[in-house]
């Protein structure tokens, strides 16, 4: 009797357990949640690109006309500056010393003019005395000639001394200009976006990988959109475009076309390698937008969608 029932019961239990395992072990895998919802294009046919925010004036990498040690930096990041406002001062002790020398040179040259003038007056009075004598026998003609020539020579010397003054003045102006060039000034009204120099550092003249200062006009921002060259033929400057903030696509704004740079540039692939290879080339279109709609910083990336005509379907070339 035992065997008669044990085995069928065991078998039924086994089957039920197998069925339970089947149901239990084949539950669908849960779907990982999205941290921030992705931006989605509001158009049916469109071009997608990544945009980078920049100032309307573009971001100006300020350079220095002369290399030298930075003495003081007159601004902080975020300062609003006017045209001509000093940004930073380079060490000018050397030039100031030179200025003193040039001033002394000028003083010396001016003294030389006075001296020459005195000589002219001396010879002039002597010459006038001789010229005043009516009786030619009272003075030898040689003496008369000597006095006249002395006057001529001294007059010329005066001219030469005056030229020396001009020279010294010009030299002084040169040094003053050099002194002025040691103060780097703001070329536009704008905001300081980045400061990469501190007092005591050496500022190198010329194009640098890391600019000394970055300045930009923040009143109006632009988005620089990279469009793959393979998509460039679909691009129409006047079609609608929308930009979404990365991380929260609820922040979006319509873009107003500003201009298109007609030169297609290599896209930077940013591998950090010493010899970057060109991945592809991109067309860069610039758009302006309302700053109040989008809390962005300069240099931030945006997801941009540009409406494009739907060319799929007909196999004909679009133009």
């Amino acid at each position, binding site marked *: 009797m035992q065997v008669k029932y044990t085995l069928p019961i065991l078998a039924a239990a086994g089957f039920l357990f197998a069925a339970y395992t089947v149901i239990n072990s084949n539950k669908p895998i849960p779907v*990982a949640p999205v941290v*921030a919802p992705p931006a989605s294009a509001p158009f049916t046919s469109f071009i*997608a690109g990544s945009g980078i925010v920049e100032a309307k004036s573009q971001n100006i990498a300020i350079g220095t006309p002369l290399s030298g040690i930075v003495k003081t930096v007159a601004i902080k990041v975020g300062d609003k500056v006017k045209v001509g406002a000093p940004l930073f001062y380079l060490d000018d002790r050397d030039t100031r010393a030179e200025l003193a020398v040039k001033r002394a040179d000028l003083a010396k040259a001016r003294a030389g003019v006075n001296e020459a003038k005195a000589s002219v007056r001396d010879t002039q009075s002597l010459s006038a005395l001789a010229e005043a004598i009516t009786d030619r026998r009272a003075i030898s003609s040689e003496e008369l000639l000597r006095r006249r020539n002395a006057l001529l020579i001294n007059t010329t010397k005066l001219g030469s001394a005056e030229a020396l003054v001009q020279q010294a003045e010009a030299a002084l102006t040169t040094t003053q200009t050099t002194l002025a060039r040691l103060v780097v000034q703001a070329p536009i009204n704008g905001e300081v976006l980045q400061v990469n120099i501190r007092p005591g550092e050496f500022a190198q003249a010329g194009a640098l990988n890391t600019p000394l200062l970055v300045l930009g006009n923040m009143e109006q921002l632009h988005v620089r959109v990279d469009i*793959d060259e393979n998509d460039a033929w679909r691009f129409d400057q006047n079609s609608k475009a929308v930009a979404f903030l990365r991380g929260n696509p609820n922040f979006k704004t319509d873009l107003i076309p500003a201009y298109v740079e007609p030169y297609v540039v290599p896209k930077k692939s940013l591998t950090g390698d010493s010899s970057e290879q060109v991945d592809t080339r991109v067309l860069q279109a610039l758009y302006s937008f309302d700053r109040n709609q989008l809390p962005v910083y300069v240099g931030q990336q945006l997801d941009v969608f540009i409406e494009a005509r739907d060319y799929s379907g007909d196999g004909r070339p679009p133009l």
Partner: protein
Amino acid sequence: MNHIAIKMLMGDRGKYLGIVMGLTFASLIMTQQPAIFLGLMSRSYSFISDVGLPDIWVMDEKVQFVDDIKPLQDTELYRVRGVSGVEWAMPMYKGLLKARLADGTFQTCNVVGLDDATLIGGPPVMLEGRLEDLRRSDGVIVDIDGARDKLGKPSPMSGGKPIALKVGDSLELNDRRAIVVGIAKVTRTFQSQPVVYTTYSRAKNYAPKERKLLSFVLVKAKPGQDLAELTRRIRATTGLAAYTREEFMSLTYEYFMRNTGIPINFGISVLLGFIVGAAIAGQTFYNFTLENLRQFGVLKAMGTSNWTLLRMILLQAVLVGTIGYGLGVGLTALFGYSMRHTILAFKFPWQLLLFSGAGVSLICVFAALISILKVIRLEPAIVFKG
């Protein structure tokens, strides 16, 4: 009559147990071996099935399976995004990188880079920490199996189990610092390498310097968009390969079917199980019928029709078959259950229940057939011969 049949079957306990054992064994092998096979094969595409959100995977057209990475240019992402019918498209990096552990050993890890903003494609279950923690500097999320085992710190006692990696521990990926900010549960992959999740841009820093680093573009179709039509459009517009999630899974699955010995090995096991089960059960059942031939003879002499005898034998076969089958699948399930926390691959879909049921039925039919032939040809006079 049925009562007699059952009594006849269970009268000889040894033979009864023998038949049931044979069928149990056959059913066990025909269920457990395919279950392991299916478990292994599903691991080949487990990475794809873990990423539930996107509908379509876009990759280089020469990609043969999920671990066969042929990276794309970064701008391809935007070209895919520009295809109409695409709701969104996100980049994903997937690659094998070497992690240096605390004791100086190296471990190859499967590093997955997710889109920085949305973190789409992340691990399905977070055990510790949150997916957002990836935004922290140098943050990575490690899978629990890798953290416990291959990426664990060496045990203070020699030969002991490694100490599991915790949130806050650091790793070295390609000479760069990585801080564990979360522990996730993922489905094991075929190679069972530890999985390290990080953001796309950080993964590009960890990866060796290469020109192209974009492994996959994950695409979500707009609502109501036909997926087959969209994959065709993506292919036509970008020249890349686009597969729906299921297509990519079967692509990977088929690659493993074609290029590894796994299906043949397991196929042979299943076949052997079937043959041995059929031989044992068939032979024992036949023997049992032979022994009971006398009884069948008596029944036949008493005027029982062939049809009734046939039904009796069929009943006996169905009974032992059902018991053997139930025991076999039960043992398989028990095996799977006891192994659920080990590295063993085991997958038990309902189709497998049907498969082994069909196998056992075939064995029973075969066993019953030869017995039935014997009984039908039986002369009732045999009873009186002995």
